[in-house]
Each structure stands twice: as C-alpha cells, then as structure tokens.
C-alpha cells in the first residue's frame, strides 16, 4: 500500500477525519462501564488523563515527523534502528493494529447481533464486516481517507443526538465531585488508553498528507476534540444513568439513546444503532489500513493491493471468530491499553533520542 501511498495523498481534512474517526468505534460504547466501575461518578476525569498520555505520544511522533519529513513510521524505524530490530518493531506495531482492528470489529459485530439481528450467526455478521473492510481497503489510502471524510459529519450528527438525553440527566449524579482515589484513576488510565491509540496513526498518515505542516497543526484540535468527546459522553452516561447503573451495563451509551424521545423518530436507539454499526467500522478500517501500510513495508510492496486487502479482511474474519466472547475481547482491548503505553510513549521517546543523536552526529 505504501507504493500507492506514494502517489496518493491525503488532504489535511481527510487526515483529520481519519484520526478522529479512528477513536470513535466500539470503545466509546463500552468504556463508560469500566470507567464508572473504576472511578464512580468521577469517571469522566479518566478520559482527560488518558488523553494526556495520548497527547504525550502525539508530541513524540509529531517531533519525529518534523525531524524526518515525508518518512512514515516503518521507514523511520529502518533509518534509526538496525534492520532486524526495525523489522521486529514493525511487526509489533502490525500485531497491535491488527488486534485492535479485530477486537473492535468483534465488539461491533456483537452489538449488531445483540440489538439488531439476534437470530443471525456471528460468522455471518463478521463476514459482512470483514468484506466491507477488505473492499474499502482495496481503494487504498485515498479511498479510506475519502470514506472517513464523508462519514465524519454523520459521526458528529450521532453525537448531537445524545444532547437531548441530558434533559433526563441529574446533575446530582456527579456529586460528590473529584473524590475518587488517585490510585483508582491511575489504574483506569491504561484501560482507556486503547481508545486513544490514534496517536500511533500519526507517523503513518501525517507524512502522506499533501500539506504536512497544515495537517500537523490540525492534529492538536483533533486530539482535543476526541478527549473532550470521550469525557462528555462518559459525563452524560453518569448524569443520565448514574455511576452505579453505568457500571453494570455492557453498553451504557446505547441505553442513553433509548431514553431520548425525539418526535417523528420513535426508536432513536435503532436509528443510532443503524448508523453506528456502520460508523463503528471506521476505527477497524483505519487500523487495518495502518496494518496494511506496515505489511506493505515488510513485504517490500511485492503483494498487489487487492491481495493484501483480501488477506487483511480474511485475517480479521478469522481472528474475530477466534475470540471467545465479548468480555474476553474487551479484556484484550484493556491489555492493549498497556501495550499502547510502550508503543505510543516509550518507544517513540527512544526513537526521538536516537534521532537526536543521529542528527547531531
């Protein structure tokens, strides 16, 4: 795919949409439950703190991108590290992206089964999603960029639909404020980190934008938007359902939609679910695209794009079916939060130090 990327560029708008779109998938539907379980009514603080780690990671990657303009992450690693080590690191990132993609699509498939198609076998829904991801990937970077750009507005619309639910909310649910133990907050941060893994996409897609400096400038508002949205949605969940109820629901956000009554649209939750089942594929798609970039680098562009897309689609389908149940999948995602701390902060910081030495040498 990197061969295609060389001639296909993302616009800064597409890059922004791709970055923001990668955050809002299965995570936003499941996260409030775990955050509420960890920090009670102060759950909304955790996304702000986890967002801080994401910003730190983004800072490292942006500096790396500035130091090596036009170089994507795998090329950058090959430049700074010995080849076997660089390839191992690429494999690590590849495994991370594929696991995030497979796990998040599994959650979306489970939600689809639970709320929309209770009598359909999982493999059928999984197959449809994998086909969709494979097909979109075959359009390359440009196709994925355009898809994110086009559906970005729908995503915003989905959030706006949440606003009427605040009428049902009680501000007293937030009290007493900021009483959670710091240890509880710190333990919950890695849990939230997998949803903020989007900073890992920066070194893969920023160098492929047509206006890098503009895209880099857009990165910060995008990350701020993501953090704010996560925090606000958790806050809404606590306000409307209460911390205890949220902690006992698998998908509290979907329940919030059920509480909203909008004239004309009688079943807003179904309307939202219909939108979401498709929109939530975006993170999976974007992480799969990142995986495609890395595999392409490892395979030295020898595999045609169609075959690579089909391979990724097939891999996602198989790994989705391999996961035992949704709770297990969510647990995998939480572990990925810890992996993010290494791949998103520690490793790029090391690369930054190495690059500094290389530049000064």
């Amino acid at each position, binding site marked *: 795919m990197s061969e295609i990327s060389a001639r296909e560029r993302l616009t800064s708008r597409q890059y922004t949409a791709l970055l923001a779109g990668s955050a809002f998938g299965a995570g936003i539907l499941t996260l409030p439950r775990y955050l509420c379980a960890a920090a009670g009514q102060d759950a909304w603080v955790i996304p702000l703190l986890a967002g801080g780690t994401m910003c730190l990671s983004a800072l490292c990657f942006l500096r790396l991108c500035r130091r090596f303009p036009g170089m994507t992450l795998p090329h950058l690693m090959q430049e700074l590290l010995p080849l076997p080590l660089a390839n191992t690191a690429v494999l690590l990132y590849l495994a991370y992206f594929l696991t995030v993609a497979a796990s998040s699509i599994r959650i979306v498939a489970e939600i689809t089964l639970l709320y*929309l198609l209770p009598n359909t076998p999982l493999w059928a*829904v999984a197959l449809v999603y994998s086909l*969709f991801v494979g*097909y979109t990937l075959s359009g390359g970077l440009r*196709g994925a960029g355009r898809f994110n750009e*086009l559906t970005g507005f729908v995503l915003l619309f989905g959030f706006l639909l949440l606003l009427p639910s605040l009428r049902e909310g009680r501000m007293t649910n937030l009290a007493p404020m900021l009483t959670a133990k710091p240890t509880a907050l710190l333990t919950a941060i890695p849990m939230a980190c997998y949803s903020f893994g989007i900073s890992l996409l920066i070194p893969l897609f920023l160098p492929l934008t047509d206006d890098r400096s503009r895209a880099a400038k857009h990165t910060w508002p995008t990350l701020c938007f993501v953090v704010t949205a996560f925090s606000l949605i958790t806050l809404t969940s606590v306000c409307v359902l209460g911390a205890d109820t949220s902690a006992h629901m698998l998908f509290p956000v979907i329940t919030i939609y059920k509480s909203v009554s909008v004239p004309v649209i009688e*079943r807003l939750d*179904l309307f939202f679910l*219909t939108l979401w089942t*498709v929109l939530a594929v975006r993170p999976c798609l974007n992480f799969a695209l990142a995986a495609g970039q890395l595999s392409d680098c490892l395979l030295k562009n020898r595999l045609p794009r169609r075959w690579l897309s089909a391979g990724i689609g097939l891999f996602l389908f198989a790994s989705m079916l391999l996961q035992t149940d949704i709770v297990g999948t969510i647990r995998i995602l939480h572990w990925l939060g810890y992996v993010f701390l290494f791949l998103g902060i520690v490793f790029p910081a090391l690369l930054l130090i190495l690059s500094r030495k290389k530049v000064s040498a």
Partner: protein
Amino acid sequence: MADDYAVLRRLLHDIRARDDDIILRSVSLPPNSVPCTVAFLDGVVNKELLHAQVLSPILQPEPYCVDDPLPDIRENLLRRFLCVSEIKDVSDSTGIEKELYTGAVVVICAGMRGAILLRLDGFMRRSPGAPLNDRTVSGPRDSFTESLPGNIGLVRKKLADPRLRVKKTVIGRRTRTNIALLYMDDIALPDTVREVERRLSSIDIDGILASGYIAQLTEAPGTSVFPTYREIERPDIAVAALLEGRIVVICDHSPLALSFPTVFAELLQAAEDYYEKPVAGTFARLLRWACFFLAVSLPALYVALVSFRPEILPYDLLVTIASLRSQVPFPVIWETLFIEFAVQAIIESSLRLPEPLGQTIGVVSGIIVGQAIISASLATPMVLIVVALANICTFCIPSFSLSVTVRILRLCMIFPAATFGIFGFSLAWMFLLVHMQSLDSMGVAYLAPFSPHIPSDHKDAALRAPLQSFIRRPKSIGNRNTRRQRP
C-alpha cells in the same frame, strides 16, 4: 501525369463494379476537352449541389472560363469550375477510396496528380428540435442532432469566443466516425485535455455508432455501474460545461454529446435549475437528491422494516400492513421482487414500443394488471405503492444513464435488506458510498465536492446559490482561469 488519371480511373471503375451505389460521371473539361471523372456515393452526396456547383460549371461553362483558361489543370479546375468551399487534395489510392466511402465527391482529371475531394454532404438530417429528456420551460429549446458540423455550429453560435478549440479526429477502423473535442483554450486544464485525447486515441475499434461507445471506451478500466460521464442533449448545457473548464466530445451521427470530467452531483442537475430563481433551483435539486435516495432505497427499506423491524412503523400502519400481508402467500422479498420485475418490464416495453402503443401499454398494465395482481392476492397494495413511488422517483433523475443505474441498484439493495434487515440496508449503502468515492472521472473525484470536501463548490452541487455568487469556476474540476465574473 496521364498515367495517374488512368490508374485512378481504373480504381474508381473497380469500386463501381463492386458497389452499385457508387456513381461515376465522365465529363470533358473545356476548352481543350480534358477527360475528367466525378465519382460519388449515392444517397450521401447532395445531388442538387453537385449539379449546381460541379457538373453545371463544367458542362455549361462561363465564357471567361473557355476564353481564358489557366495553364495548370488543377488550378484551372479549382479557380474556374468548382464552386465548392470544402476542398481537399489526396494523392494515394487508399486515401481516395476511404474518402469516397465517407461521402466525399472525388474529381480526377487527366494531366493532374491525385484527386480533388469535395464535401457536398446531402445526407438526410433533422433540424434541431426540442430535447427528448432534458426539457425546460424557461430555457432554450434547441437540441443536438445527428450532424457533427451542425452540433459544433450550435455550440459556436452560443459561445462566440475565439478561444473555443475544436479538435477533430476519426475513430473506428471501418465506420470512420468523426469525433470532435471541444474545450476552452484558456480555461480547461491542459492535463485533462491531454488525458481525454489520450483515451480517445487509444480506442481501436472497428465501429463507433453513437457517443455511448465513446463514453464506455474512454472510461477508466474496472467495473462500475455508475456513469462517469455526462450525456448532453442541449447546446446550452454543453456551453455551460465548457465555461466550467470541462471538455465536450461530440460524435458524428449521435444527438448526445459527452462532457468530461463529470462529478456525481452534476448528474442530478438540470438546465432549468439555472434559468429559475436560486430557491426554485435549490428546491428542485434537493428534491432530485431525495428522489435518488428513495429510488434506490424504498423497496429495500420496506423489505427490511416489514421483515425485521416492524415495530419502527407506526402502529396503525403496521396493523394495515399485517392484515394485507396475511392474504399474500409469498414472503415480502418475493412479493417485492415480483412487482419490481413487473414494473421494470412495463418500463422496458413502453420504451421499445411506438409512442401511442407504449402509452396504452403503460395505462393497461398500470391499472388493469396492477388491479388484477391485488385482486389475486399476489401482492399487497403497499408493495405496489412502494415500487411505483420508487419508479416515479427514478424518473426525476435527469440523466438517463444514472436512472438505469438506479434501477439496477434498487434491485441489488433488496437482497442485503432481506438478509440482514436495516443493518444490511445501511451496510449496502456504505458499500455503495465506498464504491462511489473510489471512482474518478478523468482524474477528478466522482463525489466531489463532498468527498474530497471542497466548500467553495457547494454553492453549485446539491444547492444552487444565486448566480452573483458564482465568482469562481468549480474548484473540483480544476481550471486555468478560475475567475468567472467580477464580484
């Protein structure tokens, strides 16, 4: 010199022996009675013009032609006898044969090298009438015909700018069809012009019978049901396309021109949008967008809701549908497919039959057969309403090619909706969107200005802003001269 005449005369006689519609006329050129032969294709050449402008001056020469002949035979022929504006010299026998079959009048003369070709086209042409598809109430009512020069003339008449370039080429090894490429020299992007020229020159086919051939053969490889070109029936739309920096391709013997590059939003625009107030134009466009969505979705949505999520429907409607459905022995999908198939068959037969008969068939099948289907409990009235409404919406789409696409898509959408309900329906739409955004028309994104998002072009996409706001030409197409009017 005399040998050239003999050879060519023998060639023309051989052709005459082969084809009975070749006419040879031998005359003597005054004053020295030089032998001369005129050859032409019967039915293609205007005989009246041939008599008046070629044969008559030779057979009944003016006195000054006889008294003061020019020494060179060719010059004498051209300056004294032939009163034709379009003249061409050809020396090789293959070229002469080819031109003869394209409708040229061949004149050979003893003592002259090669042949003189005259254009005296007399093929039956219709005059520009009202367009069949894209009709307007307040706009001009002329449309392209099957004549290439006539069509170029219609454009030239509306666009009296010396920077309008017309490049002609011949495509089709056997049909030798004339194709004209029109673009504004100072507006169209040279890269786009070159790309269109490249794609036209890469066509190697025996015959081009209509512009549809050109449209398909210039499309990028790969399969897509969506047209990435715009078929233009009206010269005013062709001029508007040229002024936006597009390239118009006109094919001889075809009343439809093509414009490149084309974006999807264009296919839902009509000429009338620009001749009415912005509010009316915007309303019509939004209506067409809604119709496009409904035309593709309505039957699929009906199947998805009734089969999987009936609780979304209002209770009273649900009860009505349930009571009607109880009398029909088929599942919703078969019922919908059956009615859809019947309606498609009626449309297809109405298009092929003579006009009065087509209308009768439409009425008979619409009312009588429809009523009979309901009475026989083969389908519910609800399905009939849904399918009929979807088909009415299809006819709101100005582009015929797109309306055919919509008819196909509508059928395709029913299957995922019947398998996965609303989920399948929405995913099918997403597949459609991903496919559409992967398309390009001569390097321009098909879904522009929505994806990639170009804010300045939104004033003439789904909306129609006031003409005063069209300060710059569309950015999505790309053009050299961006300014359209003074702010």
